[in-house]
């Protein structure tokens, strides 16, 4: 059995990659992907602990999250399309109409 620390390390690595993507990229699509990465990092944790404890609740929650992620992507793509239509691009730093 793989010790849980490895799962946690994997999860942390995936999460940090996602975070790095969000902090450094300006492309909205990359943003969306990075968010997915972070979400899945959490999923890894859920599944890993579920496996360790022998309790399926965590896996159920993981499935839930996937469904949620799908919905999220649908909305996210929608937003990106609107972004593209309004700002002629998908650079998130252009869309600053909501600033102070």
């Amino acid at each position: 059995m793989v010790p849980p620390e490895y799962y946690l390390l994997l999860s942390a690595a995936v999460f940090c990659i996602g975070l790095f993507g969000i902090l450094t990229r300006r492309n909205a699509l990359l943003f969306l992907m990075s968010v997915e990465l972070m979400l899945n990092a959490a999923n890894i944790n859920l599944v890993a602990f579920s496996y360790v404890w022998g309790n399926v609740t965590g896996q159920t929650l993981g499935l839930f999250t996937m469904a949620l992620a799908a919905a999220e992507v649908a909305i996210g793509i929608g937003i990106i399309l609107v972004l593209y239509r309004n700002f002629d691009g998908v650079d998130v730093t252009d869309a600053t109409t909501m600033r102070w």
Partner: protein
Amino acid sequence: MAGILDFAPAIVLLPFVSFLVALSVGDRLPKGGAFAGIAATAGSLVLAIATVLTVAGGQTYDATIYTWAEGIDAVDLTFGVLIDPLSAMMLLIVTLIAFLVHVFSLGYMNDEGETGLPRYYAGLGLFTASMLGFVVADNLLMAFMFFELVGLCSYLLIGFHFREPGPPSAAKKAFLVTRFGDYFFLVGVVAVFATFGTAAFAGSESFPALAEAALNGEASVTTFGFEPQTWFTIVGLLVLGGVIGKSAQFPLHTWLPDAMEGPTPVSALIHAATMVAAGVYLVARMYGFYAISPTALAIIAFIGGFTALFAATMGLVKREIKQVLAYSTISQYGYMMLALGGGGYVAATFHLMTHAFFKALLFLGAGSVIIAMHHNENMWDMGGLKDKMPVTYYTFLAGSLALAGIFPFAGFWSKDEVLYETLIHGLGGSPLLLGAYAMGLLAVFFTGFYTFRMFFLTFHGNPRSQTAEDPHGVRWNVKGPLVVLGVLATVAGVVNMVPIEKLLGIGGIDFLHQWLDGGFEGLTAHHYADLIPYSSSYIGSEATTVAVGAAVSLGLALAGSGLAYLLYNVPEPIRHTDRLGRIKAVLYNNYYQDEYQVWLANGVARPLARVANKFDGGVVDGVVNGVSGVSLFAGGRVRRIQTGVVSNYAALLTLGLTALLLAFGILGGWFV
């Protein structure tokens, strides 16, 4: 026992009804509601006569008729009617003068085609009603309330011609100056309640009686940490503030000459029977309270004597007939205060009565002259009116003789008694009173002079203007009141011929003394005589003192009048007072009393208010706006982290989370 005295409230209510009638339907009545007023005051007069007759029969009346505020576990505040010899006499005077003034107004207002008559008669009715309510008041609170209503009516009537600039200003001044005095009065009323728990005038539970008992150690009252004597003096002086305001005593006399802006019949009413009389009447009403305080009495006497002299000097140089009369009123009320302070309760009341008659007469006479002169009041435009208006002339002469205090006119008797009482009490060991007496005596000379200066300038000599040559005639409604008052001014002295009694030894002709010695125990002249802290002393015998006093005052009055005769009873009088030079300027400007009071209002109060306003807008509101400004500014800065760039938000989020984790870690000791 339902006697005539049970109808006493009707004396007050009748003029009030006439006020309501004139106010509501006056413009639909003939003469603008004048007849309602005349009928009401006539009714009051009849009732007042009946009251006086009943009181003469030895009856008195003191009953609560309305509970204004019923205290639960606290004192009741009530309205009551107190009829004793003093108030009965005052009722008679007020109703008589009010009735005559109403009649006179027919000639002065209606015949002259004034507009706004319903307002005028409503004002007169309310004025009379308020004064009568004040007169019959059986407690200090009720007295104060009607005192204030009197002030309101004076405001309304002085400002009757509100379309001109002068009258509203004069009305405002009259109300404001008397309000200043009334402030002290109101504090006094509240203090009386707090001290005694009652403000009743009469009875063993009245505040003068309680005060007397407290001084004798027979009753305990709240004196707020002062000696009872000191505290009663303070309270008495507080109430006196109202008196000084309403009775136009120095230094609150300045409103009265300005009040001449009102219609002349109103001036007559104010000066003779209502507003100005109210102050002195109040002191007489609660004389038992003042009599136990030597300090208060001394102050009253000194203010009175000083005012008598002070106002008389100003009257010397005035050009307008009503102005002279105004200053004479101030001066004469000074005499009454002098008498009250000097222990001459009866003398003061006596002078109040005679003065009411002759001053009403003089004002109505002046009104008649003013009608004749087409509302020109400058005496230097008059002259020679003697032959053209004989009724006015002779009645005015009677009034002038009474004012100057010439034997045997009414004013002589009362003024003589005022001075006599002050003299004997002064000789009895009160040098302060002697000083006040000296001032009063000196004022007699000036009174004679200004009275006859006015008289001769108006009626004698050659006419000095077109209108004086062909004056406007006056009708019965002017002459009638003049004749009635003329007779009274001549003979009213017989009610109290003390000098005759003392000199010739005829007992029992001091009717007024006997009259005021009746009524409630504790409110009698006799009782007051026991209370006052003065002893009497005489020059030689009592009779000699009487004779000397009378001779001196009569001599001075004659000297003053004679001087006026010499200077002004010539065909073409010249302005002798101009020779006084700078003194005249000072006198003509009333010792610059108005200036400093106007300065107090405009030079002190208003700038202070403006400073307060600046402070309010700058500092107080500034702090409020400052707080909001700081919040807005801080918000304006902090909101700049809201850049709109999603990456920045994400960075902030991450940093925040890291910071939180670090904080938890350090505080939670994870790193140890």
